[in-house]
């Protein structure tokens, strides 16, 4: 493989890895579930690589990748248009515009999350991270804790809401200081 191709691959890897979290959040905001996100992200990664030779390196990779992802999401959702959980094209358009515009803010929120997780009690932190851990199923987690599934969901909702308030407050504080 030529050095030029090596550089090409390295450049793609670097840009993709750098933007994968925001791209995943972008896709996740437009599809009904994380399983859908997984499927779309696989397609997006392949299409980005296929088209990378056409990418103008002087342009913004993220903006270009969002455009590709948006197209892939729309194609994916059209195949599932009869599913009531699927957004229509107009709503996808509005959400995509908003998601692209708020990507930097969401990166900052992700950075603030670690601080906010530390502000939870140990029990709250363990619970929320357990709920998001690989292979965890909520009904089994509820059984282990001696709770009903719905009471566990309500507890998680309160913790997530508290985390969201915290990261928003953190960003406001950062702006003020």
């Amino acid at each position, binding site marked *: 493989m030529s050095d030029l191709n090596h550089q090409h691959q390295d450049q793609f890897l670097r840009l993709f890895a750098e933007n994968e979290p925001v791209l995943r959040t972008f896709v996740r905001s437009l599809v009904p*579930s*994380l399983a859908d996100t997984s499927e779309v992200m696989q397609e997006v990664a392949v299409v980005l690589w296929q088209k990378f030779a056409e990418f103008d390196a002087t342009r913004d990779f993220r903006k270009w990748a969002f455009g590709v992802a948006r197209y892939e999401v729309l194609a994916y959702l059209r195949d599932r248009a009869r599913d009531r959980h699927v957004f229509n094209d107009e709503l996808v358009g509005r959400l995509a515009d908003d998601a692209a515009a*708020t990507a930097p803010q969401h990166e900052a929120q992700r950075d603030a999350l670690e601080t906010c997780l530390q502000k939870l009690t140990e029990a709250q932190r*363990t619970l929320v991270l357990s709920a998001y851990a690989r292979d965890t199923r909520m009904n089994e987690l509820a059984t282990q804790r001696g709770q009903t599934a719905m009471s566990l969901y309500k507890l998680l*909702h309160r913790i*997530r809401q508290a985390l969201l308030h915290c990261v928003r407050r953190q960003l406001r504080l950062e702006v003020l200081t």
Partner: protein
Amino acid sequence: MKSNWHETIQRYLDGLLSAEEVTELHEALYENAELRALYLDYINLDVALGTAAEAALLGENGIGKTAIFPRPPARLSTPSWRWLGATAACAALVVFAMLSTHRDSSRARPDIDATLSSTQSAIARLSVEPASPLPAWMSPTASLLDQSQTSE
């Protein structure tokens, strides 16, 4: 803005909303920019918590170092839908990384089709997703809701 949108959005993310509630949420999201901002913040939090949970498991951050996140005792043989995406993305990156790492040992130039084919194959092999992926609308939480409603 309706005071319980926080709850509604989270229930939507967990697959717990009824069809009527989903329709109401979609309509409200279309009309209300403030609600879209809230929805996107929750989406971002949802994805970030998945990453944080993985990092805590791996002990790669401060949380992991203080060992406050024990691995849940019960594990299922079936994979969690939350982690399908992360696995697939990592698989893609691993394949690309492997291509880069081994480039010096292989002087032959693989064509793009072969590269993409191997990438897709690797994704299929490395992903924990079963051969037949879950339908788009289906998540473990949907069946959970049914069970919960039955039991209550």
